[in-house]
Every structure is written in C-alpha cells, then in structure tokens.
C-alpha cells in the first residue's frame, strides 16, 4: 500500500470476556501488522465472541485490547472505545449486507458514516466494485446477489474504509465448494494487500493453513494450541486438533483419474484435470503388516516414523515416499504390534480422497 507511512504496531489483546452466564472466553492474541492469524475451532468455541470483543460489540470483562498502540478496551482504567469509533473492518459470517441498500450503497455505507459526501462515497465504492469485477451487479440488492458476489461485496465494504484491523468471521463457509476454492485465492490476494493485522476465524483447517501464518486452536473459550499449520498437523495436542487440523493436505497435478504428487501418484475418484488440492483424513488411511488383500489401488510399502497415542486412538506418521498422518484405533495398533521404525503397508480407498480443483500456487 502506498500510504504505508503510518506506524502500525498491530493488534495486542489479552482478555477475558463473558457471554451469557455459561460462556467464558480467555484469549491472548498478538498479530503484527501485515500478518494473518487464524483462530481455528469448533462451533461454540468462542470464535464469534472474539470477533465481537475486538470489534467493540462486546466489552471485555478484564484485560486489555490495543490496536496500533491505542487502547480500545481496558476495564481496569475504565476505557472502552465503542465500535463506531474503532477502525475495525469486519466480514461477518453471513455477510450481513444491508438488504435495503444496493451493493454499491452497502460498500459506501462506511464511507458515508465517516461523513464523506454521498457522491464521493458512492464513487469510491463503485471504483472498488469495478476493481473486483462486480460493476455489473453494483445496483443490485443483496437478495439478488450470488453467495460469492455477496462475500466479495462484504469484503469490499469492510476494506473500503481502510481499517486498522481486519476481522474475517468464517468468510468462506457459506459458499459452495467450487466458489470457495476460487474466492479463497481472491481472499489471499486481498489479505496480501491489506497492511494491517488480520484475524481469520474459521473451522476449516485447510482455510487456516492456506491463509494464515499462525494458527491458534480455540476450544471451549481457550486456546489449546498455537503454531504453524504443520505444527498442528504433525503434533496435534488435543482430540479436536487431531480430528480437524490433522488432515493430510497435499498439492498435485490431476489427469485421467490420477493425481501426480512430487514423487508419487494417487488414484482419485474425480475426473478433475490440472492443479488440485488433495485432502486425506487420517482415519481414511489404513495400516497393514503385509500388502493388503484385494489390493486397493492406493497402497504402498513404507516405514512408521512416529507413533502417538491419544487415548483410544493412535496417530501414525508414515515415512517416504509420502509423509502422511494416519489414525487407527489402539486395538488395531496393539493387534498389529506396531512400533516406530516398523516396515508396513498403508492403503487409502480412492473414494476417501478429497480433491479440490484450482489450487495453484496457494501452498507456496
């Protein structure tokens, strides 16, 4: 960004917040300018509460929130900056585009609220919509927009006021799978172009891995793990992290029902061609002592690199040719007497492999 002369010291938050009698959120966040942090967690973990707290829609109970060196909320000194005086851009989960305003009026809303004259605000909003290729729908109401268009209008509405902090609450979860992959790339570009700190709220580990530099796993109002996508994938600390973030995420080139990875080839259930993103749930991978009978097409010999016991379930990291995390039951592990360093066969049913088209350069 051109006007990058302003010193932005990012977001610092260390807080306790309460919603209703039953829910308590305890969170420490530090997001330097120009970086994206993901808050990954299941429903009810406190993700939306975090958005509300940072946006000023819910005061903290204790702690402090500072943005660009300015304290936004600190009950101990009686300081609370209301939402309309914070410069925080929010993309809400269901977008919350104003149904009585057109797309361009929605985008202009923040500018108008900041006392920009109507004509100027609309002109700037129209410019923005043109830049993201939505000129032709600028006069439509939200009810007449597709999910993808609504998402981009919501993002434009949040960004056009040049906020100091960008909050994205499940920005892609309302979209269908193909739109999601495309808009995730758009979003990555927008995030790249946004100079301030960015917080991505999501329950989708792929989204978190692709869009954020750092991931906090949030469960029941607490951060249970912090690290890179790889940290969490390879060393999940909780059951939830293992379930969700533990998915194997691979890049490859698909053609004719196969996907070529760096040094390996997998059979896939779809006829997608070109660059693809491949996800394999750890529980979809089976481990055998000998070459499995009926030989599933995706099976190969390898070596066990790591065994982690997590209660009744055991996570097994396999070595070359393809490093994967498998998850099998404790019973099966004991029955096979599996140990680190053992030679084994792994097998994956083609139907268990998730393939998403059009993922070029996302993982780079």
């Amino acid at each position, binding site marked *: 960004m051109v006007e990058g002369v302003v010193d932005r010291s990012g977001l610092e938050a260390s807080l306790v917040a309460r919603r209703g009698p039953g829910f308590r959120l305890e969170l420490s966040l530090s997001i330097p300018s120009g970086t994206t942090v993901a808050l990954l967690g299941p429903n009810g973990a406190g993700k939306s509460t975090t958005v*509300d707290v940072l*946006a000023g*829609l819910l005061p903290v109970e204790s702690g402090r929130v500072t943005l660009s060196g300015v304290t936004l909320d600190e009950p101990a000194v009686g300081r609370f900056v209301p939402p*309309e005086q914070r410069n925080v851009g929010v993309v809400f989960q269901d977008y*919350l585009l*104003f149904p*009585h305003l057109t797309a361009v009026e929605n985008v202009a809303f*923040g500018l108008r*609220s900041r006392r920009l004259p109507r004509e100027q605000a609309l002109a700037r909003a129209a410019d923005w919509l043109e830049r993201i290729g939505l000129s032709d729908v600028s006069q439509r109401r939200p009810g007449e927009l597709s999910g993808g268009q609504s998402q981009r209008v919501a993002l434009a509405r949040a960004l056009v006021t040049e906020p100091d902090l960008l909050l994205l609450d499940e920005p892609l979860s309302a979209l269908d799978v193909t739109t999601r992959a495309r808009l995730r790339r758009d979003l990555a570009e927008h995030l790249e172009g946004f100079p301030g700190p960015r917080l991505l709220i999501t329950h989708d580990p792929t989204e978190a891995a692709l869009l954020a530099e750092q991931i906090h796993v949030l469960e029941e109002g607490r951060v249970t793990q912090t690290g890179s996508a790889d940290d969490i994938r390879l060393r999940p600390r909780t059951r939830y992290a293992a379930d969700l973030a533990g998915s194997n995420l691979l890049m490859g080139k698909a053609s004719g029902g196969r996907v070529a990875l760096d040094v390996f080839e997998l059979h896939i259930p779809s006829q997608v061609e070109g660059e693809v993103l491949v996800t394999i749930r750890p529980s979809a991978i089976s481990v055998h002592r000998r070459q499995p009978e009926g030989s599933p097409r995706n099976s190969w010999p390898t070596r066990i690199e790591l065994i982690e016991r997590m209660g009744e379930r055991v996570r097994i990291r396999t070595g070359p040719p393809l490093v994967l995390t498998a998850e099998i039951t404790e019973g099966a592990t004991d029955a096979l007497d599996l140990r680190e360093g053992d030679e084994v066969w792994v097998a994956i049913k083609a139907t268990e492999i998730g393939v998403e088209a059009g993922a070029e350069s996302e993982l780079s």
Partner: protein
Amino acid sequence: MTHSKPERRRPGARPPIVLIILGCLGLALFLIPLAGLLARTPWSELPRLLTGDLVTDALRLSLTTSLLATLIAAVIGVPLAWLIARVEFPGRSLVRGVVTLPLVLPPVVGGAALLFALGRRGLIGEPLAGLTGLVLPFSTSGVVLANTFVAMPFLVITVEAALRNLDHRFEAAAATLGAGRWTVLRRVTLPMIGPSLVAGLTLTWARALGEFGATITFAGNLQGRTQTLPLAVFVALESDRDTAVALSLVMVAVSLAVLVILRERWWKAL
C-alpha cells in the same frame, strides 16, 4: 380407486364444500352493507350533498385530525415501540399490556377516562388549564388526542413486532462501519422495518379516521370543531338520511383508495 391414496393435487386446489359456503357467507357480510349503501345512494343529489357545509366541514376536520393523530403516534409511538422491544426494564410486560389496552377497551370508556384525566376538573386538566389556559375537551385538539389514544396501539404493536424480529447483527455491522447510534437508527433500523412502519401508520390512520366513541365522549359533537365524519354520519342519520349516505360514501371511498394504494407495495408486511 382407493380412498387412502387420492390422486396427487396441489394443496388447496379443491377446498371442502363447507368451507366454500361459510367463506362466501363471510364475504357477504362485508358486501351486503356496501350494496345497501350504494342502493340507497341518491346519485343525482350527490354533488349538492357533498358540497354541503356539514360534509365539507366534517371531511376537512376528519382528514386534519386523523393525520395529526398519525403524526403524533409516529413521533411518540415509534420510540415507545423501540423501548418496549429493545430495553429490558422492570414491568416491561405490564407496559406492553397498558399499550394494547385501548385496543380492547370500549372507545367510550377511553373517552370517559380522558375526560376524567384531562377534563376541566380532571386530574391533569385542571392544573393544565390553570397554568397554560389550554383546555383540551370539546376542542379540535381534544379530537386529535382521542384519536391518538385509540389508534396509536396499532402502530406500537406493529413496529414493536418488527423491531423484535429484526436481526440485531445488522445494527452491529453498521456500528463496525462507523455508524453512531443515531445513524444506525436512521440508516439501518428504520429502513429495515420500513414496510411494517408504513403498515402500522396506515392502520393507525384508518383507525383514527373511523374513531367515534372516544371522540364524542371527550370532544363532543360541534360542527366544524369536533364533528368528524363518523360523528356527522351519526347526526345526519337522525335528521337527513341522504346526507348520511353521502358522508358514508366519502368514508368508504377514502378508505378503499388508501387500501388499494398501500396493498400494492406494503400490505404484505402485515
């Protein structure tokens, strides 16, 4: 042919015969009086009757007072609806009950209550007259007050329901976009409940236009000052049937016109 599996039909395509008969009876109840009115109308005399003093005075007074009552209801009724819908305070359900009381109370009783409170000897009327010289009963202002008292609940109820059904997150989103409370109210809340607001205002106005009992009790029946259309109809029925019919036609025409105009755009919100 089995009875358990009748051929597939659009639901409601062939309603039971009993429903048709009863429904038509219901419709007849509305249509027959209208037909009676039209049959009794002295069409050739109509221009003369409609330009008579009694009719023009009543029409002018009715339009002025009902519109003023609607305006007052908008100014104080919408905030009241907002408070009941959005602010939690002790006795809120009681307040909600008080607001809807004029809906079920016989208007005459409402008028009498207004008289006891604001009459020349009333609880508030006496000090009010002493301090400001303002005397409400048997004045045009009294008509407006009686109209507002009886009609405002329609607005409050409609707007309150709309506010309660409105997703608060839209207002939160507006706040994050830099809109202060007043801007949020003006640019998000009110436009989003717009259809209900218009419907509520229409009902209020229609109720005010037809007000009789509270008006005649509190404001009396003085031609040109407090004699609105319904009052004029009542008086004319005693003395001059033709004028009564002409007045009634005016009311029917005005009400129908408003209904038709509003139905196009807003009525669906109700």
